């Protein structure tokens, strides 16, 4: 239902808006939109870059397969629509952190988890003051239903002192895991690992039918078909994540595809 006319209408609205801004404000806006523009550009070129980026954004959204999002968006039509938000208020009103050493894990989908963490000022300054400060890393540890660690069920992701969050590519769906924020002194077998913070336990959701489905009778299978199971990206067996970026030394066996 893309309406090119709508986009061009908004382009002209946005042109009107941009025209009212100083060159400095245009640069600030471009910066807010994540555009990396060289300094010294003519005003017209800065405007063009902004309008191009906006049009691209807009088209991406409309061609998205996210039906729910598109429908929901119409509720908010009285607002900015596709036009530019000229408020340059990107500086966060909130402090980014709470001066504590912690880590929390959230699961996004079968392939990705998100972790955010922090180190207290005291912890951080002791590390900053130490030239041989041990590197930080996240250890993603697969656990059983009771929370016990699985043998060989972990992998590490190095992070820096400046990092405060990370999206983690999971090896497969349907696992329970936790994330430890760690530092390591020394290398290889002789290394000493210190756990700075331990996350909550999380379960990555499944994308495969439960074992035992083969026990469903013909009537049940027919009803699953009639429910549209064929169109739902549901697998019949657990797969390793095909797009996973495998850390060195943690290569996994490739899974079967459906």
């Amino acid at each position, binding site marked *: 239902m893309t309406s090119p006319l709508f986009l061009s209408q*908004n382009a002209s609205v946005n042109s009107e808006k941009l025209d009212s801004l100083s060159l400095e404000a245009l640069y600030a806006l471009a910066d807010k939109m994540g555009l990396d523009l060289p300094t010294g550009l003519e005003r017209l070129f800065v405007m063009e870059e902004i309008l191009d980026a906006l049009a691209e954004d807009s088209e991406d*959204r409309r061609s998205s397969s996210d039906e729910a999002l598109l429908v929901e968006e119409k509720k908010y039509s009285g607002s900015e629509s596709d036009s530019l938000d000229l408020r340059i208020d990107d500086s966060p009103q909130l402090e980014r952190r709470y001066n504590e050493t912690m880590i929390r894990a959230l699961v996004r989908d079968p392939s990705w988890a998100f972790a955010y963490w922090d180190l207290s000022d005291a912890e951080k300054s002791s590390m900053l003051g130490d030239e041989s400060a041990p590197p930080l890393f996240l250890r993603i540890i697969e656990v059983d239903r009771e929370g016990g660690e699985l043998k060989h069920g972990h992998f590490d992701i190095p992070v820096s002192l400046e990092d405060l969050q990370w999206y983690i590519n999971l090896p497969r769906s349907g696992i329970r895991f936790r994330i430890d924020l760690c530092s390591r002194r020394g290398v290889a077998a002789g290394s000493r690992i210190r756990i700075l913070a331990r996350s909550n336990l999380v379960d990555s959701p499944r994308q495969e039918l439960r074992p035992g489905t083969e026990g469903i009778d013909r009537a*049940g299978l027919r009803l699953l078909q*009639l429910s549209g199971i064929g169109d739902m*990206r549901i697998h019949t067996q657990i797969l390793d994540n095909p797009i996973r970026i495998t850390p060195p030394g943690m290569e996994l066996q490739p899974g079967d595809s459906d």
Partner: protein
Amino acid sequence: MAKGQLALVLNAHLPFVRHPEHPRFLEERWLFEALSETYLPLLRLFRRLEADAVPFRLTMTVSPTLASMLGDKLLGERYAAYLETQLRLASAEEERLGSDPVFGPVVRLYSALYREDREDFETLYGRDVLGGLDFFYKKGRIDLITTGATHAFLPLYADSPEAVSAQIEAAMVAHRRAFGKHPAGFWLPQLGWHPMLADALRAYNVQYTVVTTRGALLGSPTPHRGSFAPVQCPSGLTVFVRDAAATKAVWSESEGYPADPVYRDFYRDIGFDLPLEYLAPYLEEDRARIFTGLKYWAITGSTADKQPYDPAAALVRVREHAANFLAERSAAAERAAPHMDRAPLMVCPYDAELFGHGWFEGIHWLESLFRQAEEFPLGIVSLSEYLRAYPESQVSMPEFSSWGDGGYAEVWLDGSNDWTYRHTFKAVERMTELAERFPDESGLRERILNQAGREVVLSMCSDWSLLMRAGKASSFARRQVEDSISNFGKLYDMLCSNTVGTEWLTRLEKRNNIFPDLNYRIFRKKR
């Protein structure tokens, strides 16, 4: 074998937007547009069906945030003023186009719409739209249910039972305040389900909810009736399953009924077509171009060369689409019935605002559907009615799921909105700490604690995350979260330092006046 059963579920929800500190506020128009194009027209539809003795059943969520806004005096006044502006605009347009054989009838359609809205809002309901809904609730025509207090995306808070309970309990209290009854059902915001909700919802005596087809089919064990019957969690909560085909027929922006070329184009609005000087008296103070609600063109297709909207042709099509929907569902029920031990059920949950606001002809589609239903081998039921007929279902636990892109939490947890969780989780944690530290407060300290609780639940609203991801009104959305968190921070500091800014607190209570009955103890640790 009993005939197929069809259950329509509408989720009426808007996030809490109320800014008395400004004389007018752009985002308050979300409510005004939905009132004009969806909520009041829906009530008119119910009255017409009732008058003609057409049997109709509907399950409908009125979210606590929406209920609060619909019951708010200030927003009521502002809506009345909005209607007057719309009527003046429609009148100016009638003067400009009234004699035009093509656009004249379309303009008059809007004049009639806003006149009816004003008549209903002011005279019939005395500005009490909730009362209008309650009338049909008490008559048993619609089954009103609730949803998360501020529509938080609950699966992401699965690890925080205090956060989840606060969202459920504040919603229950708000529902009882608005309608005087305990809701039987709970709409999952964004259809976001996590297995921990099975116990959490039952703890509040919720009987049923609805999940996506995919979430149910991935459940443990696999439901052997597919989406044609609900499942029951071990806790006793009944979980209805969305019908995938019925969803696509109405929901899809590309293939669904609302995309038909003959229907009115949502995006082409005179607010972007006509000269600013002409529109200025009807716009907000900053005179920025906005959607006015007056749209004269048909969808036509992917072309800039739009055809004028023909309301008569659209009405013919809407009847065809309603008949087609009923025929398709009847056929699906007929295919499923031989494999079932009970009547196949098809649950069709949609956003209420799709009807009328997003899809202009949607209210007529619903009307046509109810009026034609008797011609098809289908029974139309509410979810409560179905549950009374079939209290037992297969025991199965659905999988983590939502109706968002990808089927999980991708929409509400991505680079645009992930920063919010650090703050909302911290706020919940600190609120729990406060509730434990001050379990029996009264007077001023209790007021501070209650307001702190309100700010925490407001910060969890999933609509803000969605808007940040969509890039629409994203600064506004971000500011809502920041304001709630920052307000909470100030209240927390007041309690910790034992200093109270009474004037500021009173101002905040007046501005964020949602959940007047909220009891901060809902955040106490769940043991």
